């Protein structure tokens, strides 16, 4: 089926368009809506967005490739981001990432075989005072210990 926003998201888009003096202003928020709906930004989505906002497809594609949070290919059901940057690394952030790699049997950047979890390393997530930390989908988990990580990852598998 051809891509289209759900009715609810289409309403959100109408609201978004009122916030900016140009249609282009809605480009990133709209891409977020699309990704929320289908998990990643396919070529079809790029064309749909360019059509919807009267932008050249190359513009939309250029935006998609610039930002790390737009997935250019399908990803796992859950996203786990582990912060590796220095302030977290001073508190074990790098080893936390290794711990997750070992537990999940994947390297950073990969998705588990069952498609449940994509593990990624992140650069500073503004949570350095509560390191080590990771982001699971939309939620931050801070001051992590091996026990809390075990519980979190197990819950994602259910």
């Amino acid at each position, binding site marked *: 089926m051809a891509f289209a926003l759900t009715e609810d998201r289409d309403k959100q888009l109408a609201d978004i368009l009122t916030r900016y003096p140009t249609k282009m202003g809605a480009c990133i928020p709209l891409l977020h809506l699309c990704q929320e709906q289908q998990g990643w930004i396919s070529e079809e989505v790029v064309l749909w967005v360019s059509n919807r906002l009267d932008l050249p497809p190359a513009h939309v594609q250029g935006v998609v490739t610039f930002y790390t949070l737009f997935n250019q290919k399908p990803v796992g059901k859950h996203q786990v981001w582990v912060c590796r940057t220095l302030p977290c690394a001073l508190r074990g952030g790098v080893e936390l990432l290794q711990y997750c790699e070992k537990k999940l049997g994947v390297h950073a950047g990969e998705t588990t075989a069952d498609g449940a979890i994509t593990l990624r390393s992140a650069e500073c997530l503004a949570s*350095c005072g509560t390191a080590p930390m990771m982001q699971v989908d939309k939620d931050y988990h801070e001051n992590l210990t091996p026990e809390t990580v075990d519980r979190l990852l197990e819950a994602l598998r259910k």
Partner: protein
Amino acid sequence: MLKVTNYLTKTYGQKDGWTLAAYERDLEGYKTARQVLTSMTKEQVVDEAKKANIRGRGGAGFPMGVKWSFMRPHPTKPAYLVINADEGEPGTHKDRTIMELNPHSVVEGCIIGCYGIGAHVAYIYVRDELHLSKERLWAAIKEARAKGYLGRTPFGKDYPVEVHVHTGAGAYICGEETSLLNSLEGRRGEPRLKPPFPAQAGAFGCPTTVNNLETIAAVPTAFRLGCEEFSKLSTLHDIKDGGVRLFGVNGHVNKPGVHELCVGVTMRELIYDLGGGVLGDRPLLAVIPGGSSTPILRADEKVSAPDEKNPLHKWHDMSVLDVPLGVDTFRGLGTMLGTCCITVMAEGTCPVASMHNLMQFYRHESCGQCTPCREGSAWLLRITEKILDGRGTMEELDQLHDVANSIMGNTICAFGEGTAMPALGFLKKFRKDFEAYVKGEKTKAKNGTLAMGSEFATRMEGH
């Protein structure tokens, strides 16, 4: 001097502290905006704002009121206020706390700011990962709108103000103000050449002021107390570094956190009085004062300011740990105050591995527009990696200096300096460690420690 305040943080520990009810109950919420809009002209607002000596909290420390005064009405174009909540500078964790725990201070600050600079719309640019922050800001905007504090006639005044939250999609560079503006307009977040500056041509080609989120959140307090009174809370009021601000402490301390304090506090006080001392009672090795782009200071460094005219003369021959954290004081130390969140490193931390970690960050985040930055950041990483792995030579160690120096001053935006300066800082302050790696006296396996007191590190040992 350590002086704790709670103008912004009073709502932090409270139940539902982020709601309008709490803001009105605990912090006289929106009374100040009401008073400003109904009793002052916009010129008076800017003049008053200057007296607060609020130095930009985003890193560069530019005086907020002066920046506001650059805004000139345009005959045909609207003006915009843009709030920078991209908070991506490694080691910075303060803006997030305001958005999550006191979002109304931001909205009230936006109302006063918009009025002062002649804007009717404010965009708060929040990095995408901060979902709770966005949610709390939107909720605050909704509450304020419902009360009539935002909209067509805030507080009955015929001066429409709207506030919107805008989101990026993961790119550190979008914290740079012109990159942020491109991102707001729906483009790739690549920094623009300046001039024109945002005050001439900013968001959507219109006059724009970009303020950091903490900067704008300080505005209601400053106007409530009277801007000069606010400024005087700081011991650096005389050198135009005023008020109270958020100070973060992270890394190897027992109690990392964020504190609201009068400007004038020292790193020693942050580390030992508020941070609970260094992890495991170890000696202190070094501190990165305000985000990873600010050059590192060694704990054993002393202030050298024999000249009486030097603003740092008062602290001549004292430890750098005892100099008040201020924009100009830290510039005088050859580093920067930056975002005012300090990263603490205990004795035993490997400076080479630390620099390598940071160079990974900069390599990853360079937007790639300028060759010196794109290629230079890759070289810095590659050579540091070779040295850390025991494959580096003395020539390469010297090459690191050359590469860093060739980035400085040759790029579109300050990311270039932000990469080169910390690299040069590590090289200068820890030359011996780098040499020890080249000579084979130290190795990554034996000496490359970053994590301390971490259960994960213990678990992963030998893996």
